[in-house]
C-alpha cells in the first residue's frame, strides 16, 4: 500500500555510493589537511631561515627524527612510554566512567541520593587535579599504575556523572505521561525511555573523558613514578634540553588522544545513528 499523500513526507535520502562518499570525504577534509601541511612546512622553513636554536623550538624534521630514533630504545623509549601511559589512561577511564554511571543512575533514581551526593561531587570537582596528584601517588603507590589511574578516574568521573544524570532525568514530560498511560513500570521507563535518552549525553561526556583521562595520567606521572611513561619522558627530556624528544612525546600523546576521540565518534555512529548530532556530521 502506498501512503495517501506521500508528498508530505520527506523521502528517505539515498545512501551515496562508495566512490561518491570517498570524493566527498576528500573534499570535506582537504582544507584541514592543506592548512596542516602548510603550517608544518612554514614551521620548518622559519626554523631554518632564522636559525632558531633547538631548545627554543625544534624543527618538525628534528621532532620526526627524534620520534624514530627513540621509538623503541635509548633513555626515553617512546613507544613503551606511550603504551604505559595509555594503559593508565584507559584504566582511569574505565574506573571513572563506571563510577560516574553508578552515581548517575543512583542520583536519577533517588532524590535522596541526589541531595546527598551532588554537593560532594561538585566540591570534589572543584579541587585542582594538580593538587591532588601527589596525594594519590602517596596513597596508591608512586610506581603503581593504579595511582595514575585514580587521578585520571577522578577527572573522568565528573563529566560522565553530570551528563548521564542529565540524560536520564531530562526526559520529555509527555513521554513519561505516555508511559504512564500504558501503566509502564519504573524499570520499563528506565529501559525504554531514560537509558536511550541518556545515550547521546553519555557519548558527549566520553568525548571529553577520553582526553581528560590522558591528561590525568600524564599529570600523575609528573609527580613521580616509573620512568618509561610519557610524563617522565617530558620532564626528563626537557631538563636535559632535548626538546626534540619532548615534542615527540607530546605529539605521541596528542595522536593517542585523537584516536581515542575518533573511536568514540565511531561508536556514536553505531549506537546513536538516529541522533541529530550524528545525522548532521555524517551528512
Amino acid at each position: 500500500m502506498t501512503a495517501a499523500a506521500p508528498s508530505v513526507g520527506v523521502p528517505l535520502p539515498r545512501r551515496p555510493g562508495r566512490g561518491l562518499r570517498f570524493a566527498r570525504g576528500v573534499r570535506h577534509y582537504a582544507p584541514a589537511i592543506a592548512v596542516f601541511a602548510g603550517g608544518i612546512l612554514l614551521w620548518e622553513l622559519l626554523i631554518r631561515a632564522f636559525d632558531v636554536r633547538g631548545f627554543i623550538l625544534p624543527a618538525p624534521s628534528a621532532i620526526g627524527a627524534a620520534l624514530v630514533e627513540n621509538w623503541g630504545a635509548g633513555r626515553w623509549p617512546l613507544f613503551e612510554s606511550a603504551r604505559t601511559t595509555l594503559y593508565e589512561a584507559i584504566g582511569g577511564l574505565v574506573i571513572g566512567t563506571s563510577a560516574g554511571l553508578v552515581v548517575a543512575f543512583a542520583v536519577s533514581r533517588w532524590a535522596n541520593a541526589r541531595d546527598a551526593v551532588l554537593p560532594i561531587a561538585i566540591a570534589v570537582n572543584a579541587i585542582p587535579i594538580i593538587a591532588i596528584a601527589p596525594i594519590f601517588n602517596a596513597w596508591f603507590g608512586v610506581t603503581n599504575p593504579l595511582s595514575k589511574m585514580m587521578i585520571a578516574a577522578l577527572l573522568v568521573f565528573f563529566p560522565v556523572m553530570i551528563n548521564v544524570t542529565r540524560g536520564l532525568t531530562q526526559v520529555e514530560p509527555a513521554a513519561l505521561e505516555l508511559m504512564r498511560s500504558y501503566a509502564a513500570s519504573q524499570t520499563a521507563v528506565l529501559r525504554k525511555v531514560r537509558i536511550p535518552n541518556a545515550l547521546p549525553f553519555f557519548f558527549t561526556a566520553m568525548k571529553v573523558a577520553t582526553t581528560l583521562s590522558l591528561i590525568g595520567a600524564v599529570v600523575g606521572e609528573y609527580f613521580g613514578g616509573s620512568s618509561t611513561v610519557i610524563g617522565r619522558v617530558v620532564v626528563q627530556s626537557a631538563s636535559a634540553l632535548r626538546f626534540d624528544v619532548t615534542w615527540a612525546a607530546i605529539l605521541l600523546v596528542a595522536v593517542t588522544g585523537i584516536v581515542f576521540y575518533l573511536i568514540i565518534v565511531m561508536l556514536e555512529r553505531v549506537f546513536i545513528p538516529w541522533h541529530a548530532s550524528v545525522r548532521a556530521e555524517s551528512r
Partner: protein
Amino acid sequence: MTDAPRASEPIVRISGVDKVFDIDGRAVTTALSEIDLEIGRGEFVSLIGPSGCGKSTLLRLIGDLTAPTAGRVDVNGKTAHAARLGREYGMVFQAPVLFEWRTVEENVKLPLELLGMDRSRREERAAEMIALVELGDFAKHHPYQLSGGMQQRVAIARALALEPSILLMDEPFGALDEMTRERMNSEVLRIWQRTGTTIVFVTHSIPEAVFLSTRVVVMSARPGRITRLVDVPLPHPRNEDTREDPRYFRLVTEVREALRAGGGSPLDLAEASDERLAAEGGIG
C-alpha cells in the same frame, strides 16, 4: 450508514468532579467545577472551550493522568485508575511524542512490548496498525524522516495498537497546517468507523469539533464548567461535502454561540444555562 450507534451503557461516567490545582496545599486555581458527563460506547465526543477552561484537564482525568479533587470518574465500569492499570487507554498528545531512537514500526510496538505480547504477534499487530494509518511504506523510517502529519499518524497507530476501549486525543492536530489538519480529520473519522473505538477529542477548533463528533461538549473558563452539550446529527460517512452542508454551518454557528455565551461573567453563565435547556429541548 446514518448516525453512529450510541449504546445505552456509558463507557465514561463523570460525576460531581472538581479539580483544584494547589501549590503546597494552598488552592491556586479551580480548573474544573461540578462536572457531570456521560459518554456512550462508540461515541466521538469533542471537548471545546477557551484556553483555561480545563478541557485538557478533563481529558487527563478520564485517562487517570491526574486525580480529581472531588467526585469520581468511572471508565468501563471501573475507576479510571483501574482502567489505566488495565491498559484500556490510547493517548494521543498535541506533540507526537515518538521516540527518535525507534523506527515507525518500533514506536508502534512500544505498548505491545509493555504488554508482554510475543514477538510474532507484535510484528503482526504493528503491521496492521501501520497499514490502518497508511504508512506501510514508511515502517522502517525514523520519526525525523517524517512530516508532522505523518508523525501524528504514527502516534495514532501506536495509541490504537492495544485495541483500547477508549482513545483520548489532546489537540492532536493543533500543530498542523489547515490542509493537513482537514485530511487528518477525515483519517480519524475513517479509523473511528473502522475500529468502533470511543474517542474523546480535545480541540479549540469549532469546525474540527463539529466535523468529527457525534456530540460537542462546550466548556467555559474560570472555573471550568460544561455550559452546553451540542448533538451533531450529521450523517456518516462524512467527507468534503459535509463541510459544505447547510446543517454543518448551522451546527458550527450553534457551537460558536454557545462558546460566546459561556464567555465569562456570571450573568453570561446564567444565560448560557437557560440556552442550554432550550437547546437540549430543541435538538435532542
